């Protein structure tokens, strides 16, 4: 695509170029729109709109969705895009409040075509802001208010005026009660998707009313609610319900699930994992009543599955594609029955099923050849033989999780590497692999996610092999791969340019030189450098300057990092949202600079900053109270910080974790 050097980009924005008129005469607006339809990568689109004013205008008109990363640019962005915008994501702007939001909405008054708005974690927005939103956007269909811990009944009442609402997520809106839910249920009768996970105040009464008023519900998430069997009875009357998530509903038992038995087969997916009081018989009744079930997640409910369950699987013969049985005792014969009954199975989760053996896997994959995802986390008994049978049968395999399968060796991966060419994700954490395994893995050129944590024997050689072929790698976990040095990083940075997430914790041989290589990964968003004792501020500064998209950074126990590194971060990484600078040798000035300057910061861990005096803590936190959502501090500070500050933090939805940890020089 068209690409413009970064330096020139800003210039284009400010200074009209002589060629502007020429370009827009050559490409008409609809032609440009046609082109833009085929440009999906946001970076490419950015390059596009920076070409000239004509392109910029075309992009303005063409743009349908917008995710705002920094609050200060919101008014300008909305002025520009108001006309065409349909999806607005403000979840990265936690400092947003009613006034700013209302003002922003007023910018496009009368012409909003917004259909979907995400205000997730924007706990500063209250009922006034929502009322303004509902007023301004008559076409509103989807609202996400999840994790806005301050949202309660009044906010729900404001939303209830949006009669056309179809999707609503209210996860962890702690203030929401039955009354608020009733408001929404009565106001938005056409609701199709609703998430009220973690809304702990909601009871059977509210669910009952919801089921009576919103008969069109297709997806419902009631995970972790304190509801009883009565709610399930109410829910069973929802004729169109397709997806039901009820994770951790510990007051629901088999009797409740019985209510799902006599339904009209609309249910496609059900998640009853962590429902402690559910047993095989409840599960069986769910299957009996819903023969169209495609996804079934029953992890961590009860230890043993009755044979009745397996025989019932036959009912779901053709439909079932996803089965998660985390934490069960699954014998080889059970796996054989699953294989025989569910031939269309695409995903199976057997994580923590410790009794799974090579034989069982063999029986399973012999029949389920369409499997794309196999989760075998913590199946300790598995050996290379299991991998060989998987490689032989599952040619479509895309995701394989083998964390803590200690008996697996390089030899097993040879088969996976040669046979499963479409593998995209593999988790090999805590498997005793060497660089030889990397040779086999590098054959999977489509690999996107690779986790090699605790594989102590992996060396630079392995990384070089990997980098030579896996160009699409986006996520690489090298936690405690202690053999890795700066050279390995150089190879990775040269080969895998798309890496967004990199974990280098406790790879103690890495120095500033290695970070200089890492800084070449322009797309890096999440970087963990915990315990890198040779890294200094200069390395961090390199990262800050190179990886402008960085949003999460862990510098815990990087003892040599001081104010200089933080200054660089404050200056360059505008999008930084999470940072851990515990145990770093920074002073009060550095902390203030960091917290005061970075506008997007939400999650900060500040444990054992022994050089920062208490007054500076106070000043730094006061400068940033309205944007912080999570804070980790030593418990000793609890009484030293002013109560007003703590109260203010809480009022904006910030959760403070007070930790009691003695200072330990090195873990």
């Amino acid at each position: 695509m068209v690409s413009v050097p970064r330096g020139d980009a800003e210039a284009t924005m400010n200074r009209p170029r002589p060629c502007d008129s020429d370009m827009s005469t050559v490409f008409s607006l609809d032609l440009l729109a046609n082109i833009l339809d085929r440009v999906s990568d946001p970076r490419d689109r950015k390059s596009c709109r920076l070409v000239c004013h004509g392109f910029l205008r075309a992009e303005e008109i063409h743009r349908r969705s917008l995710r705002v990363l920094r609050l200060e640019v919101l008014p300008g962005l909305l002025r520009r895009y108001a006309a065409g915008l349909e999806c607005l994501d403000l979840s990265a702007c936690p400092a947003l409040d009613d006034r700013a939001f209302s003002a922003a909405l007023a910018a496009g008054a009368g012409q909003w075509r917004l259909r979907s708005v995400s205000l997730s974690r924007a706990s500063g927005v209250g009922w006034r802001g929502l009322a303004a939103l509902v007023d301004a956007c008559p076409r509103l269909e989807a609202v996400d208010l999840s994790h806005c811990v301050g949202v309660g009944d009044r906010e729900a009442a404001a939303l209830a005026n949006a009669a056309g609402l179809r999707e609503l997520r209210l996860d962890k809106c702690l203030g929401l009660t039955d009354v608020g839910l009733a408001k929404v249920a009565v106001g938005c009768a056409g609701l199709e998707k609703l998430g009220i996970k973690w809304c702990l105040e909601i009871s059977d009464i509210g669910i009952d009313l919801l089921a009576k008023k919103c008969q069109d519900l297709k997806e419902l998430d009631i995970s972790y609610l304190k509801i009883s069997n009565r709610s399930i009875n109410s829910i069973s009357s929802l004729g169109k319900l397709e997806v039901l998530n009820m994770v951790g509903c510990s007051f629901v038992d088999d009797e409740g699930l019985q209510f799902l038995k006599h339904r009209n087969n609309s249910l496609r997916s059900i998640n009853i994992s962590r429902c402690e009081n559910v047993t095989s018989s409840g599960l069986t009744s769910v299957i009996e009543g819903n023969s169209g079930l495609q996804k079934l997640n029953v992890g961590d409910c009860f230890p043993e599955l009755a044979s009745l369950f397996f025989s019932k699987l036959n009912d779901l013969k053709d439909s079932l594609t996803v089965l998660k049985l985390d934490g069960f005792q699954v014998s080889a014969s059970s796996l054989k029955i699953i294989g025989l009954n569910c031939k269309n199975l695409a995903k199976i989760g057997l994580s923590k099923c410790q009794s799974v053996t090579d034989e069982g896997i063999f029986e399973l994959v012999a029949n389920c050849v369409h499997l794309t995802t196999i989760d075998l986390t913590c199946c300790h008994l598995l050996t290379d033989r299991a991998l060989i049978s998987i490689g032989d049968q599952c040619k479509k395999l895309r995701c394989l999780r083998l964390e803590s399968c200690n008996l697996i060796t390089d030899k097993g991966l040879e088969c996976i590497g040669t046979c499963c060419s479409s593998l995209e994700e593999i988790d090999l954490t805590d498997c005793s692999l060497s660089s030889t395994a990397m040779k086999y893995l590098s054959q999977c050129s489509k690999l996107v996610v690779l986790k090699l944590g605790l594989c102590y024997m992996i060396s630079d050689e392995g990384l070089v092999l990997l980098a030579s072929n896996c160009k699409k790698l986006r996520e690489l976990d090298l936690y405690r791969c202690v053999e890795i040095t700066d050279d390995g990083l150089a190879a990775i940075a040269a080969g895998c340019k798309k890496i967004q997430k990199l974990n280098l914790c406790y790879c103690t041989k890495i120095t500033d030189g290695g970070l200089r290589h890492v800084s070449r990964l322009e797309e890096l968003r999440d970087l963990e450098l915990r315990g890198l004792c040779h890294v200094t501020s200069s390395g961090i500064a390199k990262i800050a300057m190179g990886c402008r998209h960085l949003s999460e950074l862990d510098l815990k126990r990087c003892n040599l990092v001081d104010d200089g590194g933080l200054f660089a971060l404050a200056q360059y990484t505008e999008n930084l949202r999470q940072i851990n600078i515990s145990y770093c040798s920074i002073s009060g000035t550095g902390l203030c600079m960091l917290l005061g300057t970075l506008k997007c910061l939400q999650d900060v861990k500040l444990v054992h900053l022994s050089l920062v005096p208490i007054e500076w803590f106070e000043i730094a936190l006061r400068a940033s109270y309205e944007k912080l959502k999570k804070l980790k501090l030593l418990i000793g500070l609890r009484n030293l910080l002013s109560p007003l500050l703590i109260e203010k933090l809480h009022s904006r939805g910030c959760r403070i974790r007070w930790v009691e940890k003695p200072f330990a020089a090195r873990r």
Partner: protein
Amino acid sequence: MDLKLRKPPESSSLSSSSRNLKPDMPFVQFDSASLDHGVPRDQSFSEVFPQFVNQSRGVYVPETVTKNDLVIDWNPRLMLINLSFLEQKIHQVQDVVRSIISQEGHAFDRGNELAVQQQLVTADLTYIIIQLISTAGTLLPNIKNALLSTDPAVDRPDSGMGMNTNLSSGGGQKLNEILPQEVAKSCEYDELIKDFNACVGEGGELIKGLNHAGDELSESMPIDDHDVKDYDDVMDGENLPPGSYEVLQLEKEEILAPHTHFCMICGKGFKRDANLRMHMRGHGDEYKTPAALAKPSKEASSVPSIIRRYSCPFVGCKRNKEHKKFQPLKTILCVKNHYKRSHCDKSYTCSRCKTKKFSVIADLKTHEKHCGRDKWNCSCGTTFSRKDKLFGHVALFQGHTPTIPIDDAKVSGTPDTAQSSEATNGMVGNVGFNFSGNSPNDGQSLDIKSAAYSQGYFSPMNFDACNFSGLDEFPRSVYEVSESPFSFLSTGSCSFMQRNGEN
């Protein structure tokens, strides 16, 4: 009034019943029937249990046993300990009874002696009850409920001895096993009767104490005000065939008279006969004798009385005997409460909310216990004391929503669109419901215990256990037309308007 309506004392009822017995009736039947079901002694046996008379001995006995099983099925375990205690005592009687069996053959066709035997055994049993009444007392609340809810034969308010009732349900199971064996035994009849009277007196007092009913023995069905209310308005399932009972209609003045017992000397009025007797002591020593202080005997009205029911003097009321679907009231108390609630001004105003009015002071007191706790409001202005009631209401009506508690609104500050829309909703709702008219003489009990309703009209609609302590009369009247078809209340809308004004 009480005097007039008082039933004969137990001794006379016993003797009268014995007199009324058909000479050819086997003892077995008589004994078990009277003891099992606490049938009032002042009724002829065949009237109460005609089916028993027609049945043969062998069929009948097991049937009563099953019937009793039904009565006690609410919690047999609870009373097991007490029953075993009872059992001991019963063994004593059993010895007596066994000796009777041997004489069964020749005692069979002598009606008079039969009666004597019956009295004998009854008296023995009464002794046992008196001994155990304190034990049984712990069970009484349960028994009471069971009586009210399950067995129509025992829950007749004017059924003879309260303790017999208790016996039949509490210890009845055990007794049943031995009772069929009871047959004649010669003994001193008069002495027994005397003892029995004493026991009745004592037993009555004990029951009173245990139930806090405070009623006289003549009304000793151990029920308190709430139960009476439930009776009054809810218990219509009696289905006595017309004509099988005597209908009594008191005059309005009689019903509303504050006092029914008057001192012959100074004219002071009393609600209770016992209080009058206590009062009389002040008028001289002659009123202090045990005879004067004893309960007046009902010997005078020894005419065998039939079941008595009451009619409301208000013509057109369903409780009036002229009504097509007449449903009689069961007791005087029911008449009083019904008449006041349905046909009188509501003169007692709640001192807290200044809105709710009642005609029965007990209703006011019950309301005041809960007044001010109606924190669950609907957008239509109706208030509820319980959340599930509000949500049941919201589920029934289109467009109604719960309102957010006011303290929340204050926190949020200025009125918002949502609130104003709720207010308008409320107005619309009121307009909608006001047209149905307004009956000042609303006959509904305002504080019906939900238990009475949970099995009632609303459960199929999931509108179970509707609470009427609030202003929510209209949903009820929608579904229940039993008593007053115009029971829509305007107070709901009025109060809402006022509240709006205040805010």
